[in-house]
């Protein structure tokens, strides 16, 4: 009888196709989205964690900006949101912000215009648009109109910059808004008349000039010493207290020595585990 034999092969294939995914689903995927400033850090941390867990936990990280990460986490679209700012009024309730590292923001200019220092009033005047020409800025070698670069409103780094280095003023609407740290870095690198602000990983890279603030250089040493003001924390945001694999990962970042070493490479570790902040 030839007919039964014809059924066996397709049935075996179908059974295999169904069974293998069922087995493979046992592995977890942690999805994250949010801040572009903490993206390089999370990439390194997640790669290490994936390795330590022998591939049982994989990660899917996208960006979009701190506010996007917060609202994604709140809606359950991702497991963990990455934020570069603390919670603020208007954020969804029921979220928990776990601080994982400290970072700082520098004003940056093009290397062809190596401004070494700017005072608070100079920074405020340039970014709010009261001063629009490099000739009015002492210490600048560039001439002509100032090309000001800023970030889009979802950026946590923008909030940090405005709260600390701008003392609460807002960047003027004439500035070009870049959607990510990487794009801001590109723009200032290409534009000899450009000025902007970047988190430390991007600001201290080659090919860009980090500007001192009120006489204090923008460096890790000055932040650790407490003299540089443009500082904030990176947070991992979950809906409700973190559970399961999410909790294990966040706890690993906050407590393990391996994670601390990774954070020290470009950022500032927090020392001991800081308390989490809950949104009401």
């Amino acid at each position, binding site marked *: 009888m030839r007919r039964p034999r014809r059924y066996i092969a397709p049935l075996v294939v179908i059974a295999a*196709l169904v069974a*293998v*995914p069922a087995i*493979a*689903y046992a*592995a*977890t*995927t*942690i*999805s994250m989205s949010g801040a572009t400033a903490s*993206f*390089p850090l999370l*990439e390194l941390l997640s*790669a290490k964690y994936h390795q330590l867990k022998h591939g049982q936990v*994989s990660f*899917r990280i*996208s960006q979009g900006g701190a506010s996007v990460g917060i609202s*994604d*986490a709140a*809606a*359950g*679209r*991702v*497991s963990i949101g990455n934020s570069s700012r603390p919670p603020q009024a208007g954020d969804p309730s029921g979220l928990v912000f776990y601080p994982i590292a400290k970072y700082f923001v520098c004003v940056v200019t093009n290397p062809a215009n190596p401004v070494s220092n700017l005072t608070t009033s100079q920074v405020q005047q340039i970014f709010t648009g009261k001063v629009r020409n490099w000739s009015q800025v002492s210490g600048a070698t560039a001439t002509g109109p100032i090309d000001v670069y800023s970030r889009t409103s979802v950026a946590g780094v923008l909030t940090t910059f405005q709260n600390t280095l701008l003392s609460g003023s807002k960047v003027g609407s004439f500035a070009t808004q870049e959607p*990510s*740290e*990487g*794009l801001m*870095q*590109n723009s200032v690198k*290409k534009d000899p008349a450009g000025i902007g602000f970047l988190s430390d990983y991007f600001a201290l*890279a080659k090919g860009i000039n980090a500007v001192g603030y009120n006489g204090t250089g923008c460096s890790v040493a000055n932040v650790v010493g407490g003299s540089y003001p443009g500082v904030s924390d990176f947070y991992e945001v979950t*809906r409700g207290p973190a559970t*399961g*694999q*999410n909790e294990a990962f966040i706890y690993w970042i906050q407590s393990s020595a391996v994670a601390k070493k990774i954070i020290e490479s470009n950022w500032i570790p927090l020392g001991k585990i800081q308390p989490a902040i809950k949104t009401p």
Partner: protein
Amino acid sequence: MAHAEPVTPPQLSAPPRRSGRRSSVRSWRRSDQLIWLLAWLAGTGLCVAVAAIVTFLAAKGISDLNPTLLVTRPSVSLDQSHSGGFLDPLIGTLTMAVIGTLIATPIAVLSAFWVVEYGRPRWLAGIVETSIEMVAGTPDIVFAIFGLALFQLGFFAPLSFRASGGGVYGRSFIAAGIMMSLLALPLTYTATRNGLRATPRQLREASVALGKTRIATIRRVLLPNVRSDIATGATLGMGRIIGSTAIVVLLLGATLQNNSQGNVPLLGFLRGTGSTLTSYIFENSPSGEGNAPQKAYAAAFVLLLLVLALNGLVARISRVGAAGAVNAGRLSL
């Protein structure tokens, strides 16, 4: 009676110059001369532009391309300028082309056959034709957005993956591939339909006279006849898929490396995210964060070669096919 009186032609304003060569431009009206000049400018301008673009890309591409780039995976860091190649994007482009064409071609061919051979009721055939025309005229970005809306439904979770909070990610090779097939569909459909329309009636009549049903005629007679048209249409569709960027950026997850989802070999790859050459070029241009224009040029060069190869293939297939197929004398350049 043997010789008729020669009839003097009416006097023209300018003496007729029937020497077998075209009339000299200097004798034309001013407006015609202007158009002649503009046409020459346009033509030569286009030649110069093409030559400039191709030589520029080739020079930049060859200087930046070394064969290791083709076989190395992109490095994990944001900054692409120091290491890593574009093996993953290359695989991504080829995967997209294969998936999109595999889905689009059967649907397009069968639809074309239905519309030309059956086509009843007439209003339904009209709707199908209009829909395909509308698909042809829809911008790529609308497909990308539609894909996001569609594949983030819970029903389609197996096609990508579900986050622990319950949201469906919605971005994967399969999702992008299905949307890409919509890009290729009108091209393949039109090529097949034109091929079918150009097949002479006698072929079908002969088949019916021999007692075959319509569906058998389609399978045994018409299908082999329009094979080259189908191939042309499918290759054109493949070219369009390879060139699309918007759908890839929104629907493929834009990860530098092709990350599989889950551990099943092929299914995991298809459910995972990745990138293609087009999104790789976009990311490495100054509008993206890869910060590696040399790699962008190299990838652009490879992409151009792919497109060149596809074009050559289309030309070859349509030439060979035109010779082999029975058709009512269609002209093609």
